[in-house]
């Protein structure tokens, strides 16, 4: 029972860590790319040049760490569990965009935040993994 609780706690810690790393990684990336004179989608070489910007570089480091965190999360939980529980990052992105980048956040954004939190909480009450580790695709909990 304690072991189960420990696994659950570890899963939620990974969720929180992933959301924080991803949100601040995206913020650093958005901040950095907006300071660049080039249009990234037109000039391919500009991608490499953009990595010299400290904000873009910091964003990339944070996003790489978030990738490893998500991989660890996917090793202990279903993809259909990870997707909604990590979705709290979407309203967080809107709040960060509003706070740091002065983007407009409407009433709709706040309602969306409530919906996402409600959905996340609901999925959080379901088993984190329905396929046994070591054999993806196997049905375990009929």
């Amino acid at each position: 029972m304690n072991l189960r609780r420990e696994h659950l706690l570890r899963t939620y810690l990974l969720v929180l860590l992933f959301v924080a790393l991803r949100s601040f990684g995206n913020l650093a990336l958005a901040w950095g790319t907006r300071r660049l004179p080039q249009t990234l989608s037109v000039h391919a070489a500009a991608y490499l040049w953009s990595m010299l910007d400290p904000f873009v570089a910091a964003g990339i480091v944070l996003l790489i760490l978030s990738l490893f965190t998500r991989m660890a999360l996917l090793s202990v939980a279903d993809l259909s569990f990870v997707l909604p529980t990590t979705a709290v990052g979407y309203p967080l992105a809107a709040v960060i965009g509003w706070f740091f980048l002065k983007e407009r956040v409407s009433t709709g954004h706040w309602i969306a935040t409530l919906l996402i939190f409600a959905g996340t909480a609901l999925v959080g009450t379901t088993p984190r993994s329905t396929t046994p580790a070591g054999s993806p695709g196997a049905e375990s909990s009929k």
Partner: protein
Amino acid sequence: MKWTLVGINIVSTVVSDLLQSHELKQAGAQSVDARGLVRLVRIIAARRYLILSIVFLAVSFFAFMALVQSAPLSFAVPASAGSFLLETVLARLVLHERIGGRRAAGHLLVLAGILLLAR
């Protein structure tokens, strides 16, 4: 151009996530402390589908990077979440995950929230 980048981002994200979920469930529980990160890197190097998933992730990343330069972050993030629905369906069909009533309802609430954010 904006929607082309969103499309590239969604398709490459879906392929990457399915490959990662499949491979990492086989690899067993991983952690993100210093030793865990080294172990994770070794697992990635040993599994070709995980390497392929990172290639798709890189494509998704560069598409997103180009997107955030031309569109607000509050558009780019929810728009790229179109992969959410596709991934849920494929998690059931390809990975054979059990998506019961509560999990499906939670997904619908989250999806509604993401769509509302994108408006």
